């Protein structure tokens, strides 16, 4: 243990603790801005500087280790002056039009400025001009970027895609797309992790709320909305609701108040995905010699973009099943359109997703099978929250309401799609049934849950056949797993990948809490919903059984192939 004094308080902490952590232990809050634990400890903003007795230079608390006998001042006049000047310098290059910023009220720079009682700025404010394609799904506003480099490090270290790089030189140094490319010229997975780790509003998804409102206002359109599993675990966080209060049924109610005609659940099509993907896997297993293994899940569009650009020779190992969002769009504009007697072009299909990459998935023409766009627009959890606020809906006063029928039913197996390992667990539950004709214990495959290590693996015995499965989330972890598979160090039959760490719970479209990783908490919420769901198996979802009976006949049927599967080679990430 190392003993030191911080602002006169004795603290004892383990070796290699930073001054920042030691101060927190003593109940002293040192302000930070660029700091992101384990990811960005680069001491760039110089907001967290402290004075150390006997040392002339101020040191960054975020990356300075404690030393025995050290005496630290975190709030001396010198420290305050340095922080204030540095903050003003940052603000002098930041477009502080907070009122129209996506991060208004949830911005680390804004709250920092507030805590410094700043009135005006000693330096003229000259934010740089923006130069971006605003029609793209991911938007970066140069005028707001504070060059904290978090996005660079998140993409380098967590996702290993290195989309962002230091651009410009000297005093003109900023962040830009690697190689000076345009964002649509590079292999970005669109996972949105840079957005959720940006302390300000410099990075955000393209806002599609206006399109949603326009569709709602259009009397000729029937609006159909689907809610993705992980959205229900997060949507209330910035609306003043506790996790217990923010049930999905209240979100249904909010959407109904906005005027959506049909409010359905992506859980329905998640169950449908399991039927198709599970059957595909069982089919492949029974013809093991003719197929390449492992089979990879295909529901995460960030992952699909990743494999298509990073490991194109492995694309044929992806399941051909479309993602739940895409299946939902296809079913809505065919089966459901026929059922309600509305032409597909008169249906406006909206997804609410925890994801930024889904915005790009719904624009892939090859995924459409209804003759028009299957999914018209995607709203992130954050956008739907904004829509709720914009419509003046009091989230606290919402009452629970049921999903509409028939695409509103989902099993417990479907709801865990939102957590890493969930798709695998759901698939195994049904694969077991498909092979043996018997249901397993629904909790039999819990081994794939959790967040430990680059990936988790399990061996499952289905009727004497041992299958090896693996689960990874986060693209850096994914890369490690794939490299191990390619090097022949590991062998699996079935692998689930989610681009965002922790799966969709930690999705790039989820509410932002600076410095917190909420995927585990949100995942817990989903596992709870699974446990409490009377239906734990996708193959028991009555709506799914009905759609097969009335429309698709059986999994992997000709019609199912036409509408629910896709050719991953039919489109390119970089056009």
């Amino acid at each position, binding site marked *: 243990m190392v003993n030191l004094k911080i602002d006169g308080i004795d603290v004892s902490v383990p*070796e*290699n603790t930073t001054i920042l952590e030691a101060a927190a232990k003593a109940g002293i809050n040192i302000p930070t801005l660029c700091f992101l634990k384990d990811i960005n*400890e*680069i*001491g*760039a903003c110089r907001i967290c500087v402290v004075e*150390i007795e006997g*040392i*002339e*230079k101020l*040191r960054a608390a975020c*990356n*300075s*280790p404690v*030393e025995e006998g050290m005496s630290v001042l975190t709030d001396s006049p010198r420290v305050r002056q340095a922080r204030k000047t540095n903050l003003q310098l940052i603000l002098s290059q930041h477009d502080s039009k907070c009122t129209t910023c996506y991060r208004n009220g949830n911005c680390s720079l804004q709250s920092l400025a507030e805590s410094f009682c700043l009135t005006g700025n000693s330096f003229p404010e000259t934010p740089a001009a923006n*130069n971006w394609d605003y029609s793209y799904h991911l938007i970066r506003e140069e005028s707001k970027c504070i060059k904290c*480099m978090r996005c660079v*490090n998140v993409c380098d270290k967590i996702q290993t895609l290195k989309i962002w790089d*230091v*651009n*410009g*030189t*000297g005093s*003109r140094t900023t962040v*830009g797309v690697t*190689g*000076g*490319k345009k964002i649509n010229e590079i292999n970005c997975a669109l996972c949105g992790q840079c957005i959720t780790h940006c302390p300000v509003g410099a990075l955000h998804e393209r806002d599609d709320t206006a399109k949603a409102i326009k569709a709602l206002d259009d009397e000729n359109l029937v609006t159909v909305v689907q809610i993705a599993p992980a959205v229900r675990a997060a949507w209330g966080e910035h609306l003043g609701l506790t996790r217990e209060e923010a049930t999905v049924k209240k979100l249904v109610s909010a959407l109904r108040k906005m005027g959506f005609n049909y409010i359905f659940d992506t859980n329905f099509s998640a169950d449908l995905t399991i039927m198709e993907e599970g059957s595909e896997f069982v089919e492949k297993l029974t013809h093991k010699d003719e197929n390449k293994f492992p089979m990879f899940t295909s529901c995460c569009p960030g992952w699909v973009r990743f494999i298509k650009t990073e490991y194109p020779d492995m694309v044929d190992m992806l399941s051909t099943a479309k993602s739940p969002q895409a299946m939902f769009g296809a079913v809505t504009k065919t089966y459901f359109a026929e059922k309600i007697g509305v032409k597909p072009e008169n249906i406006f299909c909206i997804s609410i997703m925890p994801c930024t990459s889904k915005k790009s998935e719904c624009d892939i023409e090859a995924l459409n099978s209804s003759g028009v766009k299957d999914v018209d627009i995607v709203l992130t959890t954050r956008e739907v929250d904004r829509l709720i606020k914009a419509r003046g809906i009091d989230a606290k006063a919402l009452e629970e309401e049921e999903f509409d029928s028939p695409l509103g039913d989902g099993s417990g197996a479907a709801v865990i799609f939102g957590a890493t390992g969930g798709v695998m667990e759901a698939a195994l539950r049904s694969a077991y049934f498909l092979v043996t004709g018997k249901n397993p214990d629904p909790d039999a495959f819990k081994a794939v849950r959790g967040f430990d290590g680059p990936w988790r693996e399990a061996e499952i015995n289905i009727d004497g056949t041992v299958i090896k499965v693996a689960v990874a989330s986060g693209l850096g972890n994914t890369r490690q797993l794939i490299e191990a598979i390619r*090097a022949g160090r590991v062998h699996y039959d079935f692998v689930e990948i989610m681009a965002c760490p922790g799966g969709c719970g930690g999705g790039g479209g989820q509410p932002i809490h600076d410095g917190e990783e909420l995927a585990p908490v949100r995942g817990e919420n989903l596992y709870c919903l699974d446990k409490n769901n009377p239906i734990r198996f996708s193959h028991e979802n009555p709506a799914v059984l009905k759609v097969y009976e009335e429309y698709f006949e059986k999994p992997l049927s000709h019609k199912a192939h036409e509408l629910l599967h896709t050719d991953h080679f039919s489109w390119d990430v970089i056009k």
Partner: protein
Amino acid sequence: MDRLSLSNKSANTRALEELAKSVGNYLPTAAQGLCPVDTAASYIGACLAQSCGKCVPCRVGLRKLGELYEKILSGKGEESDIGLIESTASVIADSADCAIGYVAGEMALTSVRAFREDYESHIARNWCCAREEHPVHCLALCPAHVDIPGYIALTQKGRYADAIRLIRKDNPFPSVCGLICEHPCEEGCKRNLVDDAVNIRGIKRFAAEKAGYVPAPACAEPTGKKVAVIGAGPAGLTAAYYLALMGHKVSVYEKRNHPGGMLRYGIPDYRLPEKILTDEINVILETGIDLHLGVDIGKDISIKEIAESADAALIAIGAHSDKKLRIEGEDLNGVVSAVTLLRGIGDGEKPDFTGKKVCVVGGGNVAMDCARSSVRLGAEKVSIVYRRRQADMTALAEEVEGAIAEGCEPVTMMAPVRIEGDENGNAKYLVCQPQIISTIGRDGRPGVKAAGVPEVKLEADIVIVAIGQAIESAHFGEFGLPLKWDTIAASDECHFETASGIFCGGDCATGPATVIRAIAAGKVAARNIDKYLGFDHEIEVDIDIPAPSLLDRPACGRVTMKERDADERKNDFELVEKCMTEEEAGQECSRCLGCDHFGYGKFRGGRCFKW
């Protein structure tokens, strides 16, 4: 008021001088990885501050250049701006009245011509394509990329063996390099901004001496692959060491009777004692390398046979042949090449120069080695004959100073014309044509031309020709490897497009260079041979680097290496340089600015824990 007064420096002038000196230090040190466009813009800004304002090209032209640069750097440049910069700079260079203007114009011209592609990239994409990232300057400048901040931190903590293990991850010759490395790392040391570079080599020597014997790490599982290495110099032994650690079976073939190459046969004992070299090589051999001495490839066995005997072969034969002056009298008795002399000494055959007058021709480190060895061999007088000025000598300044202290006399601005002998065919005089220093050439060095004065005769019983080394590459050319002049033209990856399984590195591929560059070549060759053999071994070391010290680094003089008294040392071949004391090493370590933690290093790293 008096009509005359002494012009004493005002406080203002002194402050300006300080500032200029500081900028002077700043520029070369900060030159690692800068944007050429931004740098040119800044230099022109600095030049503009010097303009007296009298003449148009300088007063207005430089300002307009500055504006064009600003436009390009802020992403508003147009394609035509490059041409405008070039023509404007050209006119400033041509028509400014004094050097302040025309030198600035020439700088802009040099930049826009050398980095045209980068200017275009700035204009097209607002992207600097020439910028290189060097988060930790010293580490990036070391050809072998040794983790310098890491071993300095370990040395400071007294963890000497760990420091040596960390160095050996990238360089198996820590003791050797601690004594004789040319330390290119120090050129970019950020400490130059504050006062002077950290004495990195001195710290390494201190750590190596303190650590004593540190065993080699364990080798990986045997792969069953065989690699033949030709040449037991620094490149060959480095490659052999890493290949052995990777689990390959390595056989090294050496022409001479002892391993070490130029380390033994080129560098005298007073700079690199034989025992230190042997101890270091023994650690390398601990990894299970088979060493075959006295095998001359091309005579005893052909490269073809060697290549067929192994799964891969590395040629690292160095540059051990001499270069001739090509003047009359070179065949006289007493005329000897530097390599021949030093090789003999390395094999223990020390000639007796007692009473002889020796002329060493050349100005490089080898020339100094010959001159200082001659003193030790009893020479009555040693002259170092060089065509240019002392300042132009390519030898390290401390080597030149050492030679002078030991009584060698630089005879500069002298070009040898012929050697005259006596009736017995023994050398008697080295006849030289005095030279005059001349215009600066393309390489940035001043040329020389014959001065309009008569030839001079220097007494010379012994003439040692130290004007460079050549490579005995003919046999390898006959085998089918590409040659360029006498070097074996391997790629930067140490292999050949035309000969699969054959690798080549070190002096024989680059021409005579430094030890650390040969070591770097050995490292690169080892990695690429491993890959060629179908493996992906990683060389790593499990050492935790001490946490960065938060202490201030106030300006503080650099500890330089002390030497034994010239009067004493010139009589023997014992080591000249003294090691730092613990006190000195501690202070020197504390001068390290810790660029691995402070500054860009913390963001972009630069440290490799494995390769």
